[in-house]
């Protein structure tokens, strides 16, 4: 039996769309959602410190 593949874009969203936690509309001028402290992820380079080479 041939099974059709379904395109995600053809599948409707719910009529009541829910955004991500902490998201605000473009109209919002608030700087931050009080419940969130955004953490910055640091990426360190993979060159080992000279003292362990």
């Amino acid at each position, binding site marked *: *039996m*041939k*099974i*059709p*593949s*379904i*395109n*995600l874009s*053809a*599948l*409707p*969203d*719910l009529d*009541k*769309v*829910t*955004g*991500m*936690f*902490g*998201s*605000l*509309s473009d*109209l*919002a*001028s*608030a*700087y*931050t*959602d*009080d*419940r*969130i*402290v*955004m*953490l910055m992820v640091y990426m360190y380079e993979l060159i080992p*410190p*000279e*003292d362990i080479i």
Partner: protein
Amino acid sequence: MRIDPELYALRSNSAPQRKAQQMLEGAKDDWRSTPQNRAIFDDLARFGAGAALHECDRLERLFTQAKTARVFTEKLIAALLPEMASHPLGQIPFRHQNSGAVSVLQIAASGQATMSLVMYERTGGSCDQQTVCFTDCQRHEAVLAGHAAIEIVRRDNSGENTANLHQESLALAQGDTLALSGRTETKIIKQVADRLLVLRLSRSPVSPMASLEFRLSDGVLVHRASGERRDSRHELMLALLGRMGRIDAAPIMAEMTQTGADHLRWEALRECLALDTVEGFSALNAMAKDQGDTLCVHAQTLRAQLIETHPELAAIESMLCPA
């Protein structure tokens, strides 16, 4: 790229960085473990586990007597500042964020509760906010320093697509305390004179409601956001697995269509259908057949629409339910 010699030196010897961090962590631990603070943090644990604020009198006092809050914060500053001055490359041992004119330092968290220092700085002119967002998170605040013109906005709890908003202007100054429900009551900072520093205690319910953002001029709902971090995290995971074409995730997605928030269940269904037609269609069928399911009608519509576009699916349907 120019690397500061002091930072470069840390590459060959990371011990000073570790030492700086230990000293700052030590100062934080000392501050937390004074008898007064231990009592406050014990109360915070109780509050975070669901107790009412009046049952946590040490903690409550911080948010009913602003002088107590001030002393509490001054002790934190006295414990940390000297260590930060002697270890300028150390990281402050609290979650912190500075965005625009608002800085947040989360000084403690337990269960559903967090305690933070929040500072608002003066921005040019008054802030003309067009919308207001209600989040399901109760807040108690004590003003430690500065003053500001604020507006308390309340909405009646009736409709979700429009709200009757009631605004009340207030002048907030050192020594004031505020308690806001979050879900139906929030504040807007209109104008800050130099700065406003508040100690804030907040608590979200275990299953928070969605955050709702309304336009101030007419009370129309302009945005709805999930109140649950975990749901949004799962939604991102679903999208990522979908884009990666991870067909092996389809059975888990099908399982996710069964429980949880409607929007997340629906996303799981969409991603599952796009990844694995049979698995997804079987989940869709189950949803469409369950009259008690809040998504039943949506699922029935989608199933009819899919069978119309792909008549082969009718054969899969009879294969799934031979009866």
